[in-house]
């Protein structure tokens, strides 16, 4: 999958790195005991620490540290047993301390790897540069008062993990796959809910272009893009802009830009010259964060099976394709549902039922797996009814639709509606005889070589038996009767 921009001066490739801010799932903030629940009344979840009152001191929240380590382990990254919190200094009304407590030189998590699963079933490794813990700022609201800005400090001090990739991605699709995979891992780990709409996962995109084989060129950072789709669009637009600038003899300046989804373009926010000098230095209110290997191992022991391992296992254990496995493992509930269906059954059949029939039907109804009217156990029972010839695949599909509507067990539906497939040879023969008798002309045509009409007869008999005739037997009997 290559993504090449054809220019007048040759081919251009895009170089992409992503910085994701993932809000840590924790009951209280990174350095204070204030609540973190989303959507509370403005300024109702603010401690004096979060509001930057005089003499207030930060105390690290152990849960947030655990989540960061957990996430680092999930990203197969180096865990740093000693890390240091630093202050990032700048003035803004929603930054009460006048600095953000972050990590600079010594982050809690070092280099790791994230595997992208591309739609063609291939994979690609993207390097993780680092993960560090930091405080979120409050929220400025500029549209609530004619000439004042209002500040909500509920978010002030909430823990974020900043996860920085290496500039390893080359296509918008890879960036999308990166975000989806990262989100899946965070959700598996329970360290972030990955909800981009609510802002609990935010993305800054670094984009540059170059002729293949060249050194990296100047990059621009697009701040705070809030959906996977917008990230991909922003990259396309930004890359095209770079090529245009270069090819018209201009130069790209390093700057921070914003993506406007309504116009589908990026625009400059501040140039390098206007960039803040953050004056990072180790926060003297906090000692270096230190823990031993036993602490890390204890967290490792509680890790769930992660998407990559699950994918491998699904492929080997259930014989399904890499593509199907990827679709399933991106969501923990989906994969758990699949496994319940597939346990002790044919994996390929199970995956078809789950990904095609179930997901299709759920999509149509706007439901997620957790709201599915058909349970995994019920879907398994349905597959069993096909396996033991109680139902034909065709009948099973009808039964499935009824299950989706009524939520009943398949055996009950089959019983109530007499939907059992007919496998009694004499009954099928009788039905065939009737149809042949009623369509003698057509039967002759078949006998005279128009074999294609057999299918028509199959349909007629099916109709006559309300679809209950075993299709294979019906085929065989009809052929025998018509063609001798």
């Amino acid at each position, binding site marked *: 999958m290559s993504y090449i921009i054809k220019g007048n001066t040759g081919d251009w490739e895009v170089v992409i790195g992503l910085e994701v801010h993932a809000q840590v799932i924790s009951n209280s903030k990174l350095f204070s005991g204030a609540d973190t629940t989303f959507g509370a009344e403005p300024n109702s979840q603010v401690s*004096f620490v979060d*509001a*930057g*009152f*005089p*003499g*207030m*001191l*930060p*105390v*690290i929240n152990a849960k947030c540290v655990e989540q960061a380590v957990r996430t680092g382990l999930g990203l197969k990254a180096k865990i740093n047993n000693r890390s240091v919190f630093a*202050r990032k*200094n700048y*003035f*803004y*009304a929603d930054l*009460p*301390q*006048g*600095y953000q407590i972050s990590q600079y030189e010594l982050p809690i998590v070092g280099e790791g790897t994230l595997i992208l699963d591309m739609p063609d079933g291939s994979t690609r490794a993207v390097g993780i540069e680092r993960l560090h813990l930091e405080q979120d700022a409050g929220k400025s609201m500029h549209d609530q008062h004619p000439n004042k*800005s209002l*500040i909500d400090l509920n978010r002030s001090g909430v823990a974020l993990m900043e996860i920085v990739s290496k500039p390893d991605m080359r296509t918008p699709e890879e960036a999308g796959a990166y975000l989806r995979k990262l989100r899946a891992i965070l959700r598996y780990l329970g360290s972030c809910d990955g909800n981009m709409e609510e802002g609990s996962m935010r993305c800054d995109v670094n984009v540059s272009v170059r002729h293949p084989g060249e050194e990296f060129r100047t990059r621009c950072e697009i701040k705070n893009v809030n959906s996977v789709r917008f990230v991909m669009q922003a990259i396309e637009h930004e890359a095209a802009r770079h090529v245009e600038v270069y090819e018209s003899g201009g130069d790209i300046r390093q700057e921070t830009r914003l993506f406007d989804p309504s116009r589908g373009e990026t625009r400059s926010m501040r140039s390098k010259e206007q960039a803040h*000098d953050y*004056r*990072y*230095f180790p926060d*003297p*209110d*906090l*000692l270096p964060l230190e823990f031993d290997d036993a602490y890390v191992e204890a967290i490792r022991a509680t890790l769930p099976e992660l998407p990559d391992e699950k994918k491998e296992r699904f492929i080997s254990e259930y014989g399904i394709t890499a593509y199907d496995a990827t679709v399933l493992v991106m969501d923990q509930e989906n994969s758990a549902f699949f496994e319940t269906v597939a346990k002790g059954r044919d994996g390929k059949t199970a995956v078809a039922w789950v990904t095609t029939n179930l997901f299709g039907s759920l999509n149509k109804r706007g439901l997620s797996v957790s709201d599915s009217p058909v349970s995994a156990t019920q879907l398994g029972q349905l597959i069993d009814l096909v396996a033991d010839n109680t139902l034909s695949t065709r009948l099973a599909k009808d039964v499935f639709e009824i299950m989706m509507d009524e939520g009943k067990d398949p055996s009950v539906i089959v019983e109530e509606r007499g939907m059992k497939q007919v496998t009694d040879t004499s009954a099928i023969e009788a039905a065939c005889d009737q149809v042949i008798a009623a369509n003698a002309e057509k039967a002759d045509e078949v006998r005279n070589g128009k074999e294609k009409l057999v299918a028509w007869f199959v349909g007629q008999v099916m109709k006559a038996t309300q679809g209950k005739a075993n299709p294979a037997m019906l085929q065989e009997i009809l052929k025998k009767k018509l063609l001798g």
Partner: protein
Amino acid sequence: MTTLTDLTLAQARDGLRNKDFTARELTESYIAAMDKHRDLNAYITETPELALAQAAESDARLAKGDAGAMEGLPIGMKDLFCTEGVLTTAGSHILDGFKPPYESTVSARLKQAGAVLLGKTNLDEFAMGSSNETSYYGASKNPWKATGDDRDLVPGGSSGGSAAAVAARIAIAATGTDTGGSIRQPAAYCGITGIKPTYGRCSRWGIIAYASSLDQAGPMTRDVRDAAIMLGAMSGYDPKDSTSANLPVPDFEAALTGNIKGLRIGLPKEYRPEGLSPEIAALWDRGAQWLKDAGAEVVEISLPHTKYALATYYVIAPAECSSNLARYDGVRFGLRVEGSSLDEMYMKTRAAGFGTEVQRRIMMGTYVLSAGYYDAYYLKAQKVRALIAQDFRQAFEQVDVILAPTAPTPAFGMGENMADPITMYLNDVFTVPTSLAGLPGLSVPAGLSATGLPLGLQLIGKPFDEETVLRVGGVIEDAAGFTAKPTLA
């Protein structure tokens, strides 16, 4: 009744328990004295009603035999400690009207121990200064005057109001904070005792930060025993301060055995630079002799990086303060000067709210942390700081405690050093290394200058070994027999 204010904290404690007088009587004596000596400007805010109410509660507890370590003892609180519902200014205009909705850990502990709050004592703005003259509320005066000279002298700083109040008998004791000498230097200038305990001994929670890696609270008292008693009430682990030490608090008063036989006392040769006043050098020699006489062994030691300490301090402390003081932005509390934009409001508020010295340190700190300068200044200063700490570690392999002068001069005249910050900074030359190393330092009045002004000797100890520091300090105190008092009008 007036003589009640001459009692030491220990004497008053015992008097209260013996029912010789009541906490109310003691407090009333102090309130009367505060009234009389208001010209010293030692207090920014007086809280007489609160004091009397607390005294009444103390009397009730004393009657029940339920007295805390500081029960009924009227103290001054440096106005850097946040006190719930009581104006807290840090000596700055920028905290106009700020009444904290919380109580600092140290002041809460003192309250819990039964101390009575007389008021909030004056200080250099945000504890930045060595003379008390940077206070927005006007300088506090030293109750002492040079013989035959009526000029007003500075009480030292930054805890100058506390030192003046204790020396003038308008507080039985007071809290101080020490970042580079802010307890020890004013204690020496005012002829009282002051100890900066080991960094981490007292919680910093609720103390308005100047330089977080250096700030430490401590008591300022009439004598060493009082310091031991009050330090015990102020100390202890606080989970709300990540830099607070999770160690038990020893019985400091019990450490005052007077027995220092066999202790090894170090005299750092670098503390005797050329040009050291002969009077200070003589005092120091006298102190060493007293300790020898008491059975200690005196040895010369070397602290080779001493000469870099002041420069190091004036990089690190401003760096931290430039960040610590960013929160005073007019948005949420204190002074706000309106502007047409957020940036303009910031600039107007901070220009009006901070005094010259605070602005100077914010500028210095911002500079040394800036891109391109960080390595040359801040990082280098951190490295030197580590070397200074190592100097002390090595010295303490040879000795148990270090004896040094507290300050290079006695109290100077008001206004004398304000024009020249460097001369002002030199006041901290003997106290700053201890602060950089986080070690306990005690200043004990040990004699008078030729001009009749108090001079202090400093004892520096191993980390968390305030007990030895206090014990040796007690011996100096006994030997010095310092009984002089300021002659107050």
